[in-house]
């Protein structure tokens, strides 16, 4: 579970996130929606402990700056940050050892197959296409078997088939009990798989909605109503 309590992030006088409260529950896919500049990435980076903030954030019951919290969450950033000269296999070895994951190779193997990266495993990151680097970035986050997963704009650079595979994978992970928090502004892609959504605008959470709360209305229509079509 990811719990964000009274998160505020200031850049001088400007509040990029203002008293944000949200919970991404275990076994559910929670979406953080909002127009550009709403504060989604700031919230995600704060949860990943990459920004200094006011408030309390807990991951799997631990404060997000503890080793225990780091051990249980995976993070897929918007732009994959990989080592150009390391091969896919070497990235897997690195993360496997850094996170001290037992049988990490077996775990990685499953995702290599799924993302169709098996044949490319000896290729260096700089030789991979944009979509493949995104897949590798996801693989590295998935192989640590996270109990909480943070994903920032996950579908950028992926082809339609990979998007479908990734969505199925998110669902499978959630079914295994993982709390998944996805930040995106592309509503169409996530409208089918989400369980809960938090809608952000101008640094605030303006609405928390469960899938079952939406009657005839689509998430997209609901979103535009709340954000005045932004």
């Amino acid at each position, binding site marked *: 579970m990811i719990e964000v309590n009274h998160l505020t992030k200031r850049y001088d006088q400007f509040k990029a996130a203002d008293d944000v409260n949200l919970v991404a529950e275990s076994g559910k896919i929670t979406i953080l929606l909002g127009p550009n500049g709403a504060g989604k990435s700031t919230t995600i*980076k704060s949860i990943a*402990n*990459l920004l*200094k903030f006011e408030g309390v954030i807990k991951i799997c019951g631990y404060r997000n*700056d503890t080793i225990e919290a780091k051990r249980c969450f995976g993070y897929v950033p918007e732009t994959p*940050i990989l080592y150009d000269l390391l091969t896919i296999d*070497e990235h897997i070895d690195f993360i496997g050892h*850094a996170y001290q994951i037992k049988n990490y190779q077996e775990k990685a193997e499953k995702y290599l197959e799924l993302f169709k990266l098996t044949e490319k495993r000896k290729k*260096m990151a700089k030789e991979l296409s944009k979509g493949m680097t995104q897949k590798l970035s996801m693989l590295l986050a998935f192989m640590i078997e996270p109990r909480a997963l943070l994903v920032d704009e996950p579908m950028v650079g992926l082809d339609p088939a990979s998007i479908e595979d990734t969505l199925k994978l998110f669902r499978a992970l959630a079914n295994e009990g993982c709390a998944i928090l996805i930040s995106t502004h592309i509503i169409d892609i996530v409208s089918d798989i989400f369980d809960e959504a938090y809608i952000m605008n101008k640094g605030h959470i303006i609405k928390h909605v469960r899938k079952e709360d939406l009657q005839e209305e689509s998430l997209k229509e609901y979103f535009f109503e709340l954000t005045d079509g932004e």
Partner: protein
Amino acid sequence: MKTLLRLWFLKSKANIRNLFKKPTSAIFTVCMVLLYGFIIISMFTIKRSPSPMMVTLDLHTSILVLIGFLALMLFSTLMSSKKALFYGNDAFFLFSGPFTRKQIMAYLTLQTIVQSVMIGFFALIFFVGMSSGLSFEPMFVWLLIIGVIFTILIFLVLSDYLYVLSIGDKKYNILSKVIIGIFVFIVMMTLIMTYLQTGELKTLFIDFIQSPLFYFVPVFGWLKLGLISYVTKEYLFVFIGFALLLLTYIIIYLLFINYQGDFYEQALQDSLDFSKRYKSLKEGNQNAMKDVKVKNVTGKFQSGAFAVMSKNFLLMKKTGHILSANDLITISIYIVLAIFTGLGFGFFIYMMVLYIFTSLQNSELATELKNYQIYLIPDKPIKKLIAVMLPTFIKVILIMTISLIIVGIYYQTDFITLIMYLINMIGYICVFMSGSVLTVRILKSRSSRIFENLMRMFIMVVCSLPSVFLTAFVLITGHLNTATLTLISYSSLFMNFVIAVGIIILCQDMMNGRELKSE
């Protein structure tokens, strides 16, 4: 052309605006402008002496050092495999926009002239540093500025011309190497001729520095001819020197702007690629401007934080950076200089400190300290910080030890003294590396190489304070002897380690990430 001039003006304005956007950056810019301005103006004013300028060995040496600096810089531009006429954004708008070839060339010329003036002034700062003690007449300074700018212009336009030629036909790729080869050959011939004239091997360098034979080296020789002839009041040779520079520039420029081949497509592609690499370089990727040959090697990973160390060692093995050709060449030059100039072990140690300074500046330590992936690793911050620092630390110590052993054998230095030198060097490595850590910790994602260097210098000053106070105390109390001198020197060394360890302990939490990316 009006549109392009406006573009240039807007870009310059935007650059200046960007420099003054943040108070720290604005203060730094003002300080740098004042410092550079002061140095240049001081050439005209402070050093003016009532007596006329004289041709001395110092003047010859200063001019030759300036020429050597220019040659290194310009030859490396000429040899660079990553060339481009413009930055990516300029190339995109120029090549795809409604501009004639003539307009594009004129814009490029304007850009090259500005670039030459900037590099020229930078080179002059170097000259001022080398020529302390000499006084210059204002006319000499003007000639120096004009000569240096023309020399740079010649090579920059030549580089552009060879680049467009090689786009048309790959066989012209070799021309850069041939031209540099010719220069090296002529300089070698000058050296040999000087030796044949004097028959003295010991004073060969001094004879070479003063020899008029150097004037036959194209461009660089002509620059020296013009400058030295001004001091000796041989104005015909001043004219010949500068006329040759001007004529060479005109010929190369005419060849370039009259080139008829089609180079737009490749030039656009190269410009975009160059901009991408340059951005990566600015972000700290030291290999951004070259295609690094990657060796097919494997490595074993340690567990936890030390997986970072294993990863960095693996990357070093892949790129051959554990003991690179560059390191070996640099150290060899220092060893040769120390031995053949007779400047001795002390000079070598001084050069080693400079080497540590520059090699740490070129290491990827700072980039690695800013890598978010390391912050996410579930391990103790202090272990992560040590794991990030260790590869660079070990690499520099390895090179240092090899060099000290070689020079130690030559000077027959005893083992204990060598160990003491090594401990001293390790002290400097600790100080410089902790400087990088502290800069990243304080300036976070905005840290840069310049700030890192300033921080290192500041820490060095702090480390030397105890020895300064001790020296003052000893001098005042009159206890100056070998024992107190040794104590003074050890106190500085001790402080190096204490401060470095203190910084590392105080900064360890930055490896958790939030302390770094906070602004």
